[in-house]
């Protein structure tokens, strides 16, 4: 049913650390790998080895440059997937009831058997989190790896979304954002976690941690510079005597 639940028991979601993400795209690949062979239709590619390759992805990593008024520009890698919004417009616009938000954990899913592939949910999503699979004609989106997180056939360490398990930098965190005492909620409180496009009124569950302020690098560009500076201007000791002695030799001081 496409009526949104007024509340959900838990608000499972991701916290993505823009300070830590190195932009390696490992989460993109592991997401595609897991989700193409598990929940629902595979994530197809079109012209994968040809001149104009494209395909369905549930997670994509953008890179942005931020140029402050003063100081140096900063490069920020920006992974983006479904934010499992509390007020998800993609759910209410669905004409068939294929899109729904789960009461037990707040995950937004698509029942692919009921999806007519009209694409209206993708139109309504400000984040570009939904992509229509061209081979299957149904809407694909992040499931928060619903087939991993409760899967007792997997070792406990693997019961997190594939992107989180894969991230080599620890930039992705998974947990209950509805519980103020959860690790992810504490992280959001501590680091000032933010919503994307809050003006859209979607109330995203996923939060983004802003990059931490950088050290002051205006005075010294090279962190090794202090080590390379001369210790004393005047050489002393044996080296000092040798310096003076060599200066006295015919040929003069250099």
């Amino acid at each position, binding site marked *: 049913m*496409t009526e949104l639940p007024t509340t959900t028991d838990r608000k499972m979601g991701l916290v993505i650390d823009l300070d830590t993400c190195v932009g390696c795209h490992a989460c993109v690949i592991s997401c595609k790998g897991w989700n193409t062979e598990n929940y629902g239709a595979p994530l197809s590619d079109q012209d994968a080895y040809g001149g104009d390759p494209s395909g369905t992805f549930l997670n994509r990593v953008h890179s942005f440059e931020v140029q402050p008024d003063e100081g140096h520009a900063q490069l920020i890698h920006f992974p983006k997937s479904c934010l499992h919004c509390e007020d998800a417009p993609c759910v209410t616009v669905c004409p068939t009831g294929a899109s729904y938000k789960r009461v037990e954990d707040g995950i937004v899913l698509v029942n692919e058997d009921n999806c007519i592939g009209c*694409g209206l949910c993708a139109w309504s999503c400000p984040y570009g989190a939904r992509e229509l*699979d061209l081979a299957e004609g149904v*809407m694909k989106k992040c499931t928060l790896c619903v087939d991993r997180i409760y899967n007792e056939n997997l070792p406990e360490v693997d019961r997190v979304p594939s992107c989180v398990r894969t991230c080599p930098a620890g930039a992705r965190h998974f947990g209950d954002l509805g519980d103020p005492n959860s690790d992810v909620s504490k992280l959001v409180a501590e680091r000032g976690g933010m919503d994307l496009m809050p003006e859209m*009124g979607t109330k995203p569950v996923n939060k983004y941690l802003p990059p931490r302020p950088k050290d002051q690098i205006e005075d010294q560009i090279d962190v090794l510079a202090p080590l390379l500076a001369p210790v004393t201007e005047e050489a002393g000791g044996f080296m000092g005597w040798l310096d003076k002695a060599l200066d006295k030799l015919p040929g003069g001081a250099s």
Partner: protein
Amino acid sequence: MHPAPSVILFTTLSGLGFGLLAYLGLGFPPVTGWVAFVFYAIAYGLAVGGLLASTFHLGHPERAWRAFTQWKTSWLSREGVCAVAALLVMGLYAIGAVFLETHWTLLGLIGAALSIATVFTTSMIYTQLKTIPRWNMSVTPVMFLSFSLSGGALLAGQESLAPWLLLAAGVVQLAYWHKGDQAFASSGTTMGTATGLGDRGAVRAFEPPHTGSNYLLREFVYVVGRKHIQKLRGIALILGFILPILCLWLPTESSMAKHLMAAVAVLAHIAGIMASRWLFFAQAEHVVGLYYGKR
């Protein structure tokens, strides 16, 4: 937004068809018998043809019946329900007019209301989308309704009413373009709010996620033909409104010439509305383009 031909055809033709049905339901003109048959054939051809065209862009048209279930929240579902209800009620009304030479007035009124409601629900599918500021305006449903009512009056042969409605629709069209040109800027959504990084400095897209294109860019970031916008707006205005008004106001003697002028007016109007609808999609910018540094 990608201007899919199926959706442009659908919104143009079904808008006209339901507009004509509304007039027929209200008894303008109060036709019966064979003349009524021709009127209803045209109206149903446009409305049903448009609805069928709209299923061409579905990934799974065979499941389209499921779209009638979610009328509580979904404007697309409401449109489906309204359209089928309007076609059924007006179908009964048409049987009375064509075969029994009678007009069941109440049924006609209900059918006319449902026909207009169908056009309104179509417009709300677009109007509801906050992600597309150019559509998310109160003037959008006014535009759809004014087009449908003026085109319907033209098809229903309402010679005295149609020019004034066409004039009004032309003014609404100009107002829609004027407001629409400012909509994205006044929505407040920028690359800064999209990334949450706006308060740190000027945000610029440095590198897209993939070297190739994708569904999002093909569907939402359609930039082809934007340079011809002013010309197309002129064509839409002239063909859609000005030429039909002139055709209707031109004094003609014979009924042959009159019918010829009416046919020219209808064809020009359809072509003009299609140009306007193409612009409606091609000019609409989805906020997701901001993540790609595009609009």
